[in-house]
């Protein structure tokens, strides 16, 4: 079973969210990286991008396929993890450290799952 840390929030599209002082940090879950396989490219968003809850934030590519990462909130990208451009495998290795983007000025958030609800959701997938 994939690792699901207690302190984070989750979406049904397999992003994790950590919120601190109005800044939302977004990444892909362990379940997501395992399902995607070896990641070889992250098409990062740019600082200043306006993003909308439930719409595409960026995409990641495994050897086999491209997959969208969805933004769980509406707001503005304030920071991106540039290290992923050269080392996309960090998402496979340490999914909860390899954050993708930070979003500020958030006006709308999706309904998040807590760890227990996300585990239950993954078990049904």
């Amino acid at each position, binding site marked *: 079973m994939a690792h699901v840390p207690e302190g984070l929030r989750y979406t049904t599209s397999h992003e994790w969210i950590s919120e601190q002082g109005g800044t939302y940090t977004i990444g892909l879950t362990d379940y997501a990286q395992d399902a995607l*396989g*070896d990641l070889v*490219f992250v098409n990062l968003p740019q600082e200043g991008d306006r993003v909308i809850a439930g719409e595409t934030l960026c*995409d990641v*590519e495994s*050897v*086999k396929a*491209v997959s969208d990462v969805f933004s769980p909130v509406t707001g503005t990208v304030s920071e991106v993890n540039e290290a992923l451009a050269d080392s996309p495998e960090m998402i*496979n290795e340490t999914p909860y450290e390899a954050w993708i983007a930070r979003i500020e000025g958030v006006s709308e958030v999706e309904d998040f799952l807590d760890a227990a609800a996300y585990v239950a959701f993954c078990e049904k997938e």
Partner: protein
Amino acid sequence: MEKKTPLYEVHVSEGGKIVPFADYLLPVQYPTGILAEHEAVRTQAGLFDVSHMGEVMFSGSTALASINHLITNDYATLGTGRMRYGILCNECGGCIDDLIVYKFGDEEYFVVVNAANREKDVAHMAANALPGTVVEDVSDGIAQLALQGPRSRDILSRIADPTRLPEKYYSFVRHVSVAGTDCLVSQSGYTGEFGYEIYTSAENAVTLWGAIRGAGEGFGLLPCGLGARDTLRLEASMPLYGHEMDDQTTPLEASLGFCVKFAKDEFIGRDALVATGAPSRIRVGLVATGRGIIREHQDVYVGDRHIGTTTSGTFAPHLRRAIAMAIVDVTCATTGTEMEVDVRGHRVTARIVHMPFYKHA
């Protein structure tokens, strides 16, 4: 309902991620992942279950004439114990399938076809074989394993007499005892690496897989799935039916003219290919020079001019760069030509390079 190869349970126990492919349930990868599997084949060895492939026997006094009538290459010059690639064309010159013919003897040929095309191929072969040829689909009784990579010979030599292994590329030896099972071993594969393809009766498959896995301990052998099979063949710029060719694409357009022998008096599709003449579009290899991964079915441009479409594309794990194959206008097909590929709405720059992208030492 998908079929299972005789090794299905083995793949599950090895931790394979099972997907449907060509009506079979097969592993796309094992827990080590596609990148590690790909690299194992390039530097050590990998073992693939390719039992889904189809095998068709041609026998009888007119077997050679039937093969030469059906397939674009010339098999009159093929010696017993040798094998040769070719294309099964329709009357319009389109590709029904690509395949490999093994010559067992003057009146006996073993033809290996793509799983997804097997029924279509057998129907076409049976309908067009000459009187005096028996065409028999023997696929269900045969398992095929591919042992690929520079350590393949060392591994196989632990469980088979090394003097019985085929010495030359595209040659084979029948009735080789591998771990006590009766096998046909050919020096061939779909990875661009040194290696063997091993055919045996379906009931021997589990024994043979286990023996090769055991013999591979200490040699870095990994079980490999369909994912690595695809990245390896693409890095070696080997065509895949349904991608680089189909019934709307001629072998000349797919840059497979080397296996179309117009010197033969006739073969199905010859008249159409002759009438068409030099192709107006051909297959080329692309390397992305911009950031992004090019995939299949993406539009290729020089400036604003649409010149073709990609047929396959991936991140090449060993070369560490994004590569693709495309069929493009022949006037834009010169090596070094710069072009752009529409990757989901944004243009990624790419350059035509010589194929193969990768060639083993």
